[in-house]
């Protein structure tokens, strides 16, 4: 089972591996089914047996030119782009998700990096206690904080606002912890030299520490961004209106429709495609960064 690199592996072992290729297919199959489903017409979606290669590819699930709001035309369907409430549609939700993801990722990373820098290189009485508080907070599961935070956001009058989506997630303790580990390896001499040159804390952080920890920004930024892009439960609690809706919320709604309306599958697949495709594309381009980022902690701890 554990062969050496230069060791001949018997053909038996190669054959034994074949069933695993079925697993490979099964991993990709949902993505394939999603991709072809999004281009199928309604009759083809519910055809039996289903087609594995699209016979009549259509863009109806994304945008159906024959669809008219408020008119019932047989065979025509509101595509993903046409599913609108209060004039806000898919592109609006897309922009919401994108802006929130970028904003929260960028700001939470910068803030955490600055905090990690002060804690490691500019300690003050109480900074050790603060660090332990950060560590302790990482052991509290989110189920504990979500109820008081929901009450807090309600009391602040932030329901149905971008603030509710962005602000509570900005102070991320685990990112501070991650950067702290990185900064411990920055030599103090470097910081001292910059201090001698008259640079203050913020200046040193911005022009010395931040560039030095750039690989770390990418590594931790990817999982933070993915989690933010997929965030579903919190928006579900604090957003009820269409103006602030995000993509996962819209998907959740469409998936809810599927329960009693199997014919909406094409639209759901189209929406899933539009949401997954950017992540898949980014992953294929930056494979190494994604894998390093998402497995961070597994091999160092």
């Amino acid at each position, binding site marked *: 089972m554990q062969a050496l690199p230069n060791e001949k592996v018997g053909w038996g072992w190669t054959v034994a591996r074949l069933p695993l290729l079925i*697993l490979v297919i099964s991993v990709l199959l949902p993505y394939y089914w999603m991709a072809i489903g999004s281009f199928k017409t309604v009759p083809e979606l519910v055809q039996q047996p289903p087609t594995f290669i699209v016979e009549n590819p259509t863009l109806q699930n994304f945008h159906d030119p024959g669809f008219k709001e408020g008119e019932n035309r047989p065979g025509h369907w509101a595509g993903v782009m046409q599913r609108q409430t209060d004039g806000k549609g898919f592109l609006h939700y897309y922009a919401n998700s994108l802006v929130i993801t970028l904003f929260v990722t960028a700001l939470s990373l910068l803030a955490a990096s600055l905090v990690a820098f002060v804690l490691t290189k500019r300690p003050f009485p109480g900074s050790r206690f603060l660090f332990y508080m950060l560590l302790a907070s990482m052991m509290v599961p989110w189920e504990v904080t979500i109820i008081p935070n929901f009450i807090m956001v309600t009391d602040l009058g932030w329901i149905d606002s971008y603030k509710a989506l962005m602000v509570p997630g*900005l102070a991320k303790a685990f990112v501070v912890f991650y950067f702290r580990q990185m900064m411990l390896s920055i030599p103090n001499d470097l910081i001292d030299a910059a201090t001698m040159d008259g640079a203050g804390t913020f200046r040193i952080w911005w022009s010395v520490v931040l560039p030095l920890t750039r690989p770390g920004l990418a590594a931790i930024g990817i999982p933070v961004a993915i989690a933010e892009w997929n965030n579903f439960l919190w928006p579900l609690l604090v957003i009820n209106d269409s103006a602030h809706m995000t993509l996962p919320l819209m998907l959740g709604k469409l998936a809810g429709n599927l329960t009693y309306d199997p014919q909406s599958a094409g639209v759901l697949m189209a929406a899933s495609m539009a949401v997954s495709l950017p992540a898949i594309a*980014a992953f294929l381009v930056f494979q190494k960064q994604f894998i390093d980022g998402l497995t961070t902690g597994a091999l160092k701890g």
Partner: protein
Amino acid sequence: MSTAPTRPSSDSTERPTSGTPRDSRLLVFLRKHGANILLISPFLALFAVFSIWPVFRSAYLSFTDYHATEAPVWIGLDNYVELFADERFYRALGNTVTYMLVVSLLAVVLGLVLALSFGTQKRWHQWIRIAFFLPSVAGGVGVISVWKWLANSEPYGLFNTIRSWFGLDPVRFLGDPAWAQPLLIALAVWTVMGYNLVIFVAGMRSIPGDLYEAAALDGASPVQRFFHITLPQLRPTLLYVLITGMIGSFQVFYEPYILFGTVDAIGGPLDSALMLVTYLFDHGFHQLNLGYASAVAWVLTTILFALTMINMRLGRANEGA
């Protein structure tokens, strides 16, 4: 942010030479650390408001009757008493524990098998690993929605089509209590096995090669080498994957919510897919019984904590052996 002071300055106070008796300790402290603390104070404020304070508030709420409309009323341990008497809670606990154990064991075993099979630097092995890793990157609600479509109860649903190839009758995957748990487990294993694969490959690569060479010289077979070198050397990685996997699957929410969640049946058919977090969600945000839901959150936290402790103890005990 860029306007923050760049050096410890004390504009508001005069600047006595250090060590002057007039210097109060506070002033010295502020001069030395004030600007630094000011820099991180926005983070600290948010951290205190959204991460620390909620812990205390949640603990308090768990001892109250609170429905969001009127002020919380202290009821002592009533929530916990009610919780431990609720049959539905045990249902959720049982489902969650089964789910957690099966998912984390299957995902670890499959991850190991895959790592042994596709762990080399060969180009096609790398591509296979990338394929398996895909759900970790492009997962979430989108892909769970796709699974909901795959598991469609009609004969044209993909899973039912595959069943028909083997001569099996279509099944109502989302409506039959017997199928809820297997479906959720399959989805979770599908999501996480590639992640485990990648971690195990990295872990195996860090095992010194001479260990294997020495063992091979002594005539150890590949199977022996796996059990006597790879597995023991991989123990920390295995333990990490197992603990994080268990903690993650214990808190499962999105999958049952998207697959089964409607307001009237959040637990799926006959509560067969009711998990602890969906149970919490049901009480907290459907029935707005926020005190009770807080108690659920603390019970869940206690179980998670105990789980982590047991795992770590086990890991340490094994190390000594």
